[in-house]
């Protein structure tokens, strides 16, 4: 009788395997989405920086082209 009471109490106190598995899955899901969030934020910033770099190249190219054109025009 005493043994049975102890077993019942232990069963109530200790989480079953399913509960542990559910908690592990919840934690993994949480970390997975946290990493998605952080990646998404930095990818957006990186895309913006790349757009800036591309614009910088275009502007420099355009300035060089116009300067060359202006230097050649008076000679013509």
């Amino acid at each position: 009788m005493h043994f049975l009471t102890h077993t019942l109490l232990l069963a109530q106190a200790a989480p079953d395997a399913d509960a542990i598995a559910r908690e592990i899955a919840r934690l993994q899901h949480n970390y997975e989405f946290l990493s998605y969030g952080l990646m998404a934020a930095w990818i957006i910033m990186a895309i913006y920086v790349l757009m800036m770099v591309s614009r910088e190249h275009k502007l420099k190219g355009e300035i060089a082209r116009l300067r060359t054109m202006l230097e050649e025009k008076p000679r013509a």
Partner: protein
Amino acid sequence: MRNYILYGLGAAAALLIARDINVIAGLPREASQGAIFKIIFFHVPMAMTAMLCSFVALIGSVMFLLTKNFKYDALAVSVTEVGLAFLAANLVTGSIWGRVIWGIWWAWDARLTSALVCWLLYAGYLALRNAIEEPTQRATFAAVFSIFAFIDVPIVIFSIKWWRTQHPAPVFWGGGSIPGAWAAVAGWNWLAMVLLGTVLIAIRLRQEDSQREIDSLRRMAHAL
């Protein structure tokens, strides 16, 4: 000299972000939300940086209309573009947090909707600038539009106080119950975002200088 200041600010921003990521990774999981709560340390500072950018854009736009000095127009467009990138990152991180905590990617509540409208308004500002060729007309129309767009900013900020929203009530610096050390981490990360934003704005301002140089070279080319 300006280059060195820019490199220094960039290095400070990178170091601070690396330090913050390290500190945030070491924080314990929040009791009810778990690890996903840590996304707030980026979500909130990014929103605050975007709102700061929109305020600077307002000042730049008003100053342009008062003085007709193009350096204010350049400031307005630079901060708007950088703020738009921060707001996009804020919306995406918030949506990912919502998927875990609410079980949905998006809710059409006052905060989320007004933030999306804010993003669309400032994207419209950039589209308007691309649509107008003449620089003075472009700057004037854009300044008026920017002032109009700013009306949405207080709505975004105070929507969680004015209305009952799906979005949580203010957690940081708004009467929410959060440990002081966590609020300090968010504060440091905001400083990192502001530094990063300042570097990006400075680079963007330089590109506006180049654009003005192109405009003047084109005028010279037409005159010849």
